[in-house]
């Protein structure tokens, strides 16, 4: 099994889908000749040509709106937002057109929107955001967020084949930092959670880059057996897997890199409070970014984004509860 970075796995998924299915094409700002701001589509234009690796005007609403039009006519566009932050400029097309299309008129919108998201590298307020919760709150949109290279490939292939709009949150900070064995050829990863590490004393529930933070924070906690649940998919949310882990471990820490107000973790915490209250041996603890824009300077950024020590401290406190 070859080893790939998270970024290579995303490229591999798109390349395989484009080779296998001529309906699949890539569109976005600078994705063609330049190969994308992060080089995810490096070399694609040589293999597939400029029509299927489409350099678009700087217009996010148009990227998403025209992707919707192409999709309802039978194509399967993969639209790249250069940074997830810019999806705010295409918000209306996603939320009002794509998300409500099937419900209202039975017309399926097979688009995948790739959103390079997250912080940790001094991107500042407009290149570091985690906007997934905006879309979780909007019916009709699926939202997935891989943490490993293997899942990045499988979830993206699944997203491209899904007849619904899927927002693929790819964490920029994982692009080249995370490597792993990735199966060759095509495979689909279901939009379900996975247990990243088995444990019995406490479960940390996270997704995206925070899965790695959680694993590191709980690798050696004086012999405590800590489970890490990687959500992988936020819509649909794998409620069964969440409740199963909580029932097994009885203590929960929920981690978001996103701003804490109404974040994915808030929904997870509410779910647990309503359906697993009797199984809890302590409060549901949340670790998330406070409700501030993501600051630029490394000292400021590290002060707001959840760090390994923040998660470790929260876990320790809850273990002692």
């Amino acid at each position, binding site marked *: 099994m070859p080893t790939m970075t998270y970024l290579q796995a995303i490229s591999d998924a798109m390349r395989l889908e484009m080779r296998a299915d001529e309906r699949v094409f890539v569109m976005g700002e600078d994705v063609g000749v330049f190969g994308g701001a992060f080089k995810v589509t490096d070399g694609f234009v040589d293999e597939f040509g400029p029509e299927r690796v489409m350099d*678009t005007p700087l217009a996010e609403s148009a990227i998403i*709106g025209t992707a919707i039009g*192409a999709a*309802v*006519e*039978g194509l399967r566009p993969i639209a790249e937002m250069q940074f997830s932050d810019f999806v705010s400029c295409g918000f209306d097309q996603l939320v009002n057109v794509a998300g409500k299309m*099937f419900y209202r*008129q*039975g017309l399926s919108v097979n688009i995948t929107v790739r959103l390079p998201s997250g912080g940790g590298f001094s991107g500042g307020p407009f290149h570091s955001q985690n906007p997934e919760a905006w879309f979780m709150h909007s019916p009709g949109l699926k939202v997935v967020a891989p943490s490993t290279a293997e899942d990045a490939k499988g979830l993206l292939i699944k997203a491209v084949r899904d007849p619904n709009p899927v927002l693929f949150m790819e964490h920029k900070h994982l692009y080249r930092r995370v490597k792993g064995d990735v199966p060759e050829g095509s495979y689909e990863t279901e939009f379900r959670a996975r247990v990243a590490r088995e444990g019995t004393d406490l479960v940390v529930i996270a997704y995206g880059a925070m899965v790695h933070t959680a694993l590191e924070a709980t690798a050696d906690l004086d012999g405590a057996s800590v489970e890490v649940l990687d959500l992988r998919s936020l819509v649909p949310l794998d409620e069964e897997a969440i409740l199963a882990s909580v029932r097994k471990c009885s203590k929960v820490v929920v981690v978001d890199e996103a701003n804490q107000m109404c974040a994915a973790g808030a929904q997870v915490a509410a779910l647990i409070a309503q359906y697993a209250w009797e199984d809890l041996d302590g409060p549901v603890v949340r670790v998330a970014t406070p409700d501030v824009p993501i600051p630029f300077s490394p000292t400021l950024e590290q002060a707001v984004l959840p760090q390994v020590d923040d998660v470790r401290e929260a876990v320790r406190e809850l273990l002692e509860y």
Partner: protein
Amino acid sequence: MRHMATEAARTDPDVPGGDVAARPPRAGEAGLIGEGERNVAARPARAGEAGLIGEGEREERASRLAGETSSRLTNADRVGLLRAMLSMRGIEERAMMLYRQGKVPGSFYDGFGQEAVSAGPAWAMHGHDRLCILHRDLAAHVIRGVTLERIFAQYMGRAGGITGGRDGNVHFGERRVGCVGMVSMLPDMMLVAAGLAMAFKLRGEQRAALTWFGDGSTSRGDFHEAMNWAGVQKLPVIFILENNQYAYSTPTASQFAVDPVERAAAYGFPGLSVDGNDVEAMFEATREARARAIAGEGPSMIEAVTMRMHGHAAHDDMKYVPAEQIEEWRRKDPIDRQVRRVEALGVDVAALRAEVKAEIDAAVEQALAMPMPEGETATDRVFADEPALLEDGASRWSGF
């Protein structure tokens, strides 16, 4: 060069190809520009065009235009266009009554006086073309083949409506006849239409997409993004600006400093002002635009100059519109105009009206007999399990 040509077309009444020129006065201009002094279309002349207007004075042109026909329409086409407009008006008048009787929930929006704006263009589009239809364009749905009882059921929020009660009034598109329903955020569908056209281009197909949008929505960014994108990629898309003089209560004078049709040239494609109350002129302009599109020559913008004769919706008494403006436009009613043409062909219009009325009566009965959707289904089918895509509608023009 394009700009110069535009200037020439605007200032020289004898520029060949400056066709379909009847641009009626804007709000506030009433009384300043008479019937015979309409502005000339702001569009570059194109070589080899069969213009509807030949040589001569503007006054003469206007009077000739009023009785002009498209040489590409058979008598059956011309009757078909009238029938579609009569259906639209009849359906909407009946629906307004049903609304007042409490049988149509929410509010009701109609396109009274604008029937030609949807009928003409829809007639010019092939069944395998695609339409993104706006809320005052009911005739387009009828022409594509949506049955009347489903339209009434749609208004009433019944299970048998096009959206099954999930959306109301004219917020629908029947995917099985190649139509995508609008959303209330305007002009979002300009981008969707550009995307449809992009799919045709990517697959090398000779098909076109068409969308309508209003004068107010030209102020939003999606107008620019769509116009620019379509121009850059030379997409086979037709943009129909439905200039009905008011965005809710806001007149065009408060909406834009430059008529949006003139902006088309800045995006690299032609913009054409057409008398939006002349169904045959609207057909002809769209036919030409479609021919351009499928020949790979790119997008076109058509400004249908018309008037919203009712309020924005049922609750709006339209006090902000001067009475004389309404009266002036009443004389230009698109249905009356087509009736005169069709009567001149010897067609029994009274019989046609009776036929349409009977169809509407039957459709209302059928719709009233349909059940309301079950409350428990409200959370079903948010996501698709299988692809469900657009299919072809009717091709109505005899030229196909």
